[in-house]
């Protein structure tokens, strides 16, 4: 163990691509999707964008051979999360109406 340096784990690796082009493409797409989620400032549109982003992540999990995690991500990130965001926004809008009325 003492002889294993900082690069010890990579010593046996001899080079060559470990990722297929499909995986590279989906990774770049996920990075672009995250940038899109952050740059969308209005929360109502952001709920739709985050649903699409969750679906993209699920596709990435499928491509990287993780079907169980992909199922979980679909039901959570594309269904449950945008639903909760939209319901919270609807409550905020209602409270805003009441707040403006009572001023």
């Amino acid at each position, binding site marked *: 163990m003492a002889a294993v340096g900082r690069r010890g784990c990579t010593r046996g690796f001899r080079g060559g*691509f*470990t*990722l297929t082009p499909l995986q*590279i493409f989906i*990774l*770049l797409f*996920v*990075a672009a999707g*995250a*940038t899109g*989620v*952050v740059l969308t*400032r209005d*929360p109502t549109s*952001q*709920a739709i964008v*985050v649903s699409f*982003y969750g679906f993209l*992540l699920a596709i*990435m*999990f499928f491509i*990287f*051979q*993780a*079907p*169980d*995690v992909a199922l*979980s*991500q679909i039901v*959570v*990130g594309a269904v*449950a*999360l945008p639903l*909760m*965001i939209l319901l*919270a*926004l609807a*409550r*905020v809008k209602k*409270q*805003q109406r009441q*707040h403006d009325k009572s001023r």
Partner: protein
Amino acid sequence: MNYLPYAVAAWLFLVGLYGVTTSRNLVHLCICLSVIQSSSYVLLLAIGYRTGRPAPIFKDIKPGTPAVDPVVQALMLTDIVVEVTVIALLLALAVQVHKRNGTLDPSRLNEIKG
């Protein structure tokens, strides 16, 4: 190019952090927090993946063939569950903050007193 998943994970973290620090709406902040959490999924995915091996479901493939790491995928499942609980609780808190203060803007919250 072999380190692209790690680079994407770092990028997701930084982009989400940018969204959190420059946010003008509490709900937008919660959603950017979920982007930060998704960076940990990409990192765990990259750690668990093995080139050329199938998924760890032995229904169709012969039991005993080398497959992708299932322990790391179980960690990712826990991660996803924790994400939804954290975001649910944060959204409920944001709604309550709006009820008390009348605004969802983080920088205006200090000015309005009860």
